[in-house]
C-alpha cells in the first residue's frame, strides 16, 4: 500500500468508476454528452446542460486555467500537517470546473498567486491506495 495520509475518496463503482479507473492509469477522464457535445463535471448520469442520458467517457486534455484560489491555514488529519497549502478551482479546457490542491505555487506569497489567475495548469496523479489515485493540478506557466 502506498504511504498516503490524506483522505482517500471511496472507490465509487457506479457513476464515477471510469473517472477513478482512468486516474489509476494516469488519465484524466471526463463525461461528455453526445447529444449537446458538452463535457461536464462533477460526473452525472444525466447531462446537466441538456438533460440527455447519452453520456460517454473520454480522456480529456488534463489541462485548464486557474480560476481562483485560497491558502488554507487550518485543516485536519493529514492535511493539518501540510498547512499552509493552496486550494484552487480550475477551469477545464473542455469546460466546467474542478477543485484541487494546487501545486507549483508558494503558499506564503498569495499576492504572487493572484497574478497567476488565468494561468495554464496541468493534472498529475498521486497513488493513494490500490484502487485510487488522486488528481492534483499544477501551475505550469
Amino acid at each position: 500500500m502506498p504511504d498516503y495520509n490524506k483522505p482517500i475518496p471511496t472507490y465509487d463503482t457506479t457513476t464515477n468508476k471510469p473517472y477513478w479507473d482512468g486516474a489509476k492509469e494516469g488519465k484524466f477522464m471526463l463525461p461528455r454528452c453526445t447529444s449537446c457535445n458538452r463535457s461536464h463535471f462533477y460526473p452525472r448520469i444525466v447531462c446537466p446542460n441538456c438533460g440527455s442520458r447519452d453520456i460517454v467517457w473520454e480522456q480529456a486534455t488534463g489541462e485548464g486555467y486557474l480560476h481562483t484560489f485560497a491558502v488554507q491555514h487550518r485543516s485536519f488529519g493529514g492535511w493539518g500537517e501540510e498547512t499552509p497549502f493552496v486550494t484552487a478551482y480550475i477551469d477545464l479546457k473542455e469546460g466546467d470546473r474542478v477543485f484541487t490542491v494546487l501545486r507549483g505555487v508558494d503558499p506564503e506569497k498569495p499576492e504572487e498567486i493572484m497574478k497567476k489567475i488565468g494561468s495554464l495548469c496541468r493534472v498529475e496523479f498521486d497513488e493513494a491506495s490500490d484502487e485510487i489515485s488522486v488528481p492534483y493540478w499544477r501551475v505550469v506557466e
Partner: protein
Amino acid sequence: MPNNPSRAAAIVAAAEADQIGYLETPKTDMMLGVEAIHNVCKMAGITTKDIEGFANPGNANNYAEYFGVVPKWVDTTAVGGCSFQIHVAHMLAAINAGMFDIGVVVNGQAGYSRRNLPRGSGGGGGGDTTGPDSQFMAPYGIAGAPSQYSHAMTRHMHDYGTTKEDFAQIAVSTRKWAGLNPRAVMHSKETNPNGGPIEVSDVLNSRLISWPLNLLDVCLVTDHGGAVLVASEAAARSFRSKPVWVAGAGEAIGHATMLEMKDFTATSAIASGNRAYKMAGMGPEDMEMAMIYDSFTVTVGITVEMLGLAGRGEFPSLFENGAAAPGGSFPINTNGGGLSFNHSGMYGMQLLVESYRQLSGTAEDGVNGLPGKQTDAEVCLVNGTGGSLSATGTLVLTAD
C-alpha cells in the same frame, strides 16, 4: 402578480432562548429551540398550544410533538442558514391560501455546547461517500465553510480590485453595532476578553484561517435559540406584541456544491432579492436598513451587491464612510452580526429576531427586557445565505 400574498401575514413576535452565546452548562439544540418558542408565545400573549404551523430545518415535527400539538402545517426545508427566511416565505403563501393562522419558525442550535455533549445530540449527519463533495472536494483538505468562501473573496478581489482592507471594514462596522448590544458576545471586554471595538488593522493582524479570510473576517461559533411567530392578517392585531408585515419574500438556489458556482462573485440573492422586491412593489432605494447574513465578511460584500444596495464591486461604499455603522445613513446588521453578536451555525434565525425588534419599535429582547432599539427604520431588507454561497432567502419587512 396574481394573488399577491404581500402583507397577507405578519411576524407578530420574536424571542430567543433563556441564555445564548457561550453557555456554561451545555444545552441541546432542542432545549434552546423549545425555550425560544415558549418565550415567543409569552411575548405574544398566547400559549404554545395555540400554534398551528411549525417550521424548522429538519425537525418541525419534533417541535410540534414536544408541545403536544398536532399541527395543521409543517415545513422542514433545510437549505442551510437561510432556511428561516424561506420558511417565512412558505408560511406567507400557506397563510395566504388559508391553511392556518398562527405558525412558528424556530431554531435551536448548540453550536458551542455541542462540543461538550455526547455525539449525536447536536446536529450534522452522515454523508454520501459517492456524492460530489465526498468524491471531489473532501480529498483536498477543505475544513468547513471558511475554506470555501475564501475562494469567492479571492475572485472578487481579482475581478474588482477590492482589498482585504475593504472586507475588513465590514467586520469593523459590525463590531460597532455589537458594542450597542449587551447580548452580543463581542459587546465589550466584560462580555469576552476579545470583545470591544476593533480596527481594520486588528482584522488584518488576526490569525489567517483561509487566505484571504482572517479570523476576524469569520463568524463566531456560539449557542442560540430563536423563534418568531407568523400570523395571518386577520389574526395579526390580536396579540400583545406588534405586527411587522411581510411585504415581500423570495427564495433561490444557485447551486448545492461550490463546484457548480458559475460566478464566484455572485449569488442567487440577485434572484431571491428581485422576487421579494417585486412582491413588495418596492426596490433597493426604498429600503431603510438591512440585515445581511454575515457568516464571513465576503458574504456581506457579495450579498449587498446582489441586492442592489451597491453596484458590482462597489460594496466598500457602504462601509468605508460609516453609512452602515451606528449613526450612518443605512444601518446594516444592527445586532452586531454573526461576526460579533452570535452565530450558531445557521444564522438566519438571528436575522429574523433582530429585524422584528427594530421594526416593531419595542426592540426589547423578549426575555430579559434588555433594550435594543438602534434605528427608526420602517422598512428592513433581510437576506439569508445558506450552504457554500448556495441558497438564499430574501424578505422585505415593513413596520405596522
